[in-house]
């Protein structure tokens, strides 16, 4: 009887550990996936900067990259399920994201608005105006990172 009890306890513990490990890796996967998404936003940023500063590519590339940015911006809040703050994997997401969800959502919407504006301005092709609109986008990235992302 005792042997069976111990065996059962061992199985239960193993199952519990596996479950925890699985939950852990699911959260870690979330973090990895959203970092990959933010990298896409970063790459779109680079496309825009390269055009404004170094004449690389065309205004049409900026339009496309800005649309990508705006679409991804709309998804940002959904990339942050509970239990994926700093401490999980390589997350740099501060707990304040879950304490002030409305502010976080508003910060994401600011990016979406600025990116849509950049797409519209870029379609017009005026380089100086594109540069100014791009500055507006950069400010929304910084605005969110300063509050919701762990500083290095």
């Amino acid at each position: 009887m005792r042997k069976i009890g111990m065996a059962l306890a061992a199985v239960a513990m193993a199952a519990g550990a596996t479950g925890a490990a699985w939950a852990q890796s699911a959260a870690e996967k979330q973090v990895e996936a959203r970092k990959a998404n933010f990298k896409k936003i970063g790459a779109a940023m680079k496309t825009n900067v390269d055009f404004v500063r170094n004449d690389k590519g065309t205004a049409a590339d900026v339009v496309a990259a800005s649309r990508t940015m705006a679409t991804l911006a709309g998804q940002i809040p959904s990339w942050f399920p509970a239990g994926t703050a700093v401490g999980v994997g390589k997350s740099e997401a501060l707990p304040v994201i879950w304490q002030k969800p409305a502010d976080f959502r508003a910060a994401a919407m600011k990016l979406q608005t600025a990116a849509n504006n950049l797409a519209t301005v870029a379609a017009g092709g005026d380089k100086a105006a594109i540069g100014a609109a791009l500055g507006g986008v950069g400010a929304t990235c910084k605005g969110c990172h300063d509050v919701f992302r762990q500083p290095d």
Partner: protein
Amino acid sequence: MAAGGTRVRVWDGWIRGFHWLLGSLVAVSWWTAEEGHMEWHFRSGIAIFVLLVFRLLWGVFGSETARFASFLKGPGTILAYLRGKAPRALGHNPLGGLSVLALLGVLIAQTTLGLFAQDEDGIYSGPLSSLISYDASSLAGEIHHTLFNVVLGLIVLHISAITYYVLRGDDDILLPMITGDTDTDLPAPKRAPAWRGLVALAFAVALAAWVWSGLKGL
């Protein structure tokens, strides 16, 4: 150098200007990066680029004590110097020559990486980052960040060595980098004419301007 003898110029104005400007601008680069004043970080960085290009040219065409050939010595000479058996000479001692090589080398690497670097957000980026991919530019940024610790380490070593010579008191090493002169019975080192300095500087500025434009026309 032993006191007495005649006053000779060991370091010309170009070398002294280079030296103190470089030191100040490395401090500016560090401070501006730390505080996030990236526009100033870029200006300071490109000015360092000008200085480094000038120094490489001056190491070949410049005054005697500035030339690499005059102070880069083989291991035999360095060992002899450490045992106190090297002939006396003006300018960098054989060990100091190594330190110059290391400092210039790591600063050239740091500056080159900076030109290609971006912060991972792609908001701030060096003028040559548009030539490479997002990932490569982020990587350059990371190495640029990490390599700065090596820069700091070498600077600490450099200042410690100078402090040691000054405290030991028998080597007039600090003042000549300020006034340019030392008292010695050794013959004065040869000095390059001023026009060569101007040409080297003009070349360095032109190259920097082209780099700053993202190598336009390439």
